[in-house]
């Protein structure tokens, strides 16, 4: 009722007197500028990673792959990259393993304290990383844990759990209940129904949220800062070397990460493609 009343009372817009061609032109210019603003820094980063000068300044002095060579000779940096992959992979796996069942429980069952459960699940993403970091640091100290990459994994998975729960829950809500009913009607037990009917229909949400968690964990600093021991992740390493200024080596790392992201996106597109079905 309220919706109908709203749309009815909405005054009609006066017809625009600007010619259509000019409006389109203005819009395209605006969109181009916006995209340029977003992608120019990335392009500059990639270009400078191939520039053969230590100084980041125009004009470009020449083409070189030296920075990639020094990059692969830098043991500290390589270890940091390895650590970041390790942390991001484990965090993603942990967030998915807890997040998917949590989303299903929220979707399927009515239980006492459900509203509280949902809020508690979603809270960590709203907490500043510093708060999560400090509180977990205190907790691990109290428990007598040694700080290492695994404490970082726990921190990331906690902070990013909500990403998985929100996306998977939203997808489950859009899935008609009758699909699962039809599956059990056709003789499938609960496990078969989940495997053959529910999972394929929430797959894109799982892959999507998994990728997001992976990327967020990969470049996370505040929580990592408090929870890591002697091991450095890549963002922490870059941050520490930044005190001496941006080196072309860092540009090279950045370029490789962009390449990796593109591969990841293509992989996600491949995994979530539904044959003959557009989503």
């Amino acid at each position, binding site marked *: 009722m309220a919706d109908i009343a709203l749309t009815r009372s909405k005054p009609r817009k006066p017809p625009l007197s600007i010619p259509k061609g000019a409006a389109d032109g203005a819009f395209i210019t605006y969109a181009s500028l916006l995209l340029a603003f977003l992608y120019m820094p990335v392009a500059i980063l990639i270009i400078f990673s191939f520039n053969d000068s230590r100084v980041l300044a125009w004009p470009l002095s020449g083409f070189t792959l030296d920075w990639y060579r020094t990059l692969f000779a830098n043991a500290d940096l390589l270890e940091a990259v390895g650590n970041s992959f390790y942390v991001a992979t484990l965090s993603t796996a942990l967030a998915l393993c807890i997040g998917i069942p949590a989303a299903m429980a929220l979707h399927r069952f009515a239980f006492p304290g459900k509203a509280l459960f949902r809020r508690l699940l979603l809270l960590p993403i709203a907490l500043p990383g510093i708060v999560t970091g400090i509180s977990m640091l205190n907790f691990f100290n109290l428990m007598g844990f040694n700080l290492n990459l695994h404490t970082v994994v726990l921190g990331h998975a906690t902070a990013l759990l909500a990403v998985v729960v929100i996306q998977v829950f939203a997808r489950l809500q859009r899935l008609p209940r009758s699909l699962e009913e*039809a599956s059990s009607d056709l003789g499938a037990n609960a496990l078969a129904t989940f495997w053959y009917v529910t999972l394929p229909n929430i797959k894109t949400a799982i892959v999507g949220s998994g990728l997001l968690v992976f990327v967020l964990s990969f470049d996370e600093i505040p929580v990592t800062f408090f929870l890591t021991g002697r091991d450095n992740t890549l963002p922490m390493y870059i941050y520490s070397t930044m005190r001496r200024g941006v080196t072309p080596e860092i540009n090279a790392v950045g370029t490789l990460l962009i390449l990796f992201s593109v591969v990841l996106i293509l992989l996600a597109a491949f995994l979530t493609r539904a044959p003959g079905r557009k989503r």
Partner: protein
Amino acid sequence: MAAIIELDSISKHYGPVVGVNHVDLAVEDGEFLTLLGPSGCGKSTLLRMIGGFEVPTAGTIRIAGADVTAAPPQQRDVNMMFQDYALFPHMTVGKNITYGLERKGIKGTAARDKAEAALELVGLSGMFERHPHQLSGGQRQRVALARAVVREPKVILLDEPLSALDAKLREQMQVELKHMHEKLGITFLMVTHDQTEALVMSDRVVVMEAGEIAQDGTPEDLYERPATPYVANFIGTTNFLSARVVARGAGLVTLEAGNQKLKATDVMPLGGQAIGQIGIRPEKMQILKDTECRPANVLPGTVVETIYQGLALRTVVRISSGEEVLVDEMLRQGMLHSDHPRAGDPVALGVEPHNILLFGAER
């Protein structure tokens, strides 16, 4: 006749709300039974309890003699055709149909052959590799039927199966489903709020009212001999007039409706109540012409308006008691050749004693 489904005093409560109230029902093997009623009358809940999607608050459900009251859907030898068809969007038509076979352990070519046969049965051969979203609404409905049929269940449950189709297709599918039922010999149990659908398709119709069975009978029974004003009103259209008995005897009861005496074939209303009102179907009255011989009952009145319906002409007549009644007449010669009375004209309505339905006082 053997009962394939037996409901024994089934109730379903949602908190303080009673959805289904002590329903006893036996579905005979091989029949096409329809649960008919307005939304909220408990018909869908009853169907879902038989399918295993809801557990009754009290009572027992037996399918083929076995108590399945608490059994999950996968352990019941019935299959449901869902209102939204519930085809798995990520599977081809073929996979949708073989899904139920594979859960039974029928796999590979055996499953494929059965699925192809089921598709042929519903007139969709060659659609095996299509995806549900590539099909029209009517085709999806057929796939849903094929998916239920292929498992050779004892009963097929149909939840408002035609409600998503447009009027033309719905009419066609009514007959088609009925033929399918005759061909397969499987029991069909359907839920609908559409009285035409129920009358056209079913062997037997159970009319439900507020979680209880209002009347149970063949389509003819329900239309010609509705037990209560509720049924008479829900199935078809009925003119209700308040009336009281003046005299009884010789199979005829004399009634007074308004200031008019009417003779009706004497049948006791359900529950043995005193007769308080009568019902007359609009098409069972006629507007008398001077030349016609007079039937047993004549009601004088004045035409209020006429409503042209193409097939028939509906005339609203105010009778001498002040009540308005509807009269439907087939337009056999077409409207253009009819000398039908217009608004304001005085008319006389004729009705035969056996066409007057007798009901108890309350409505």
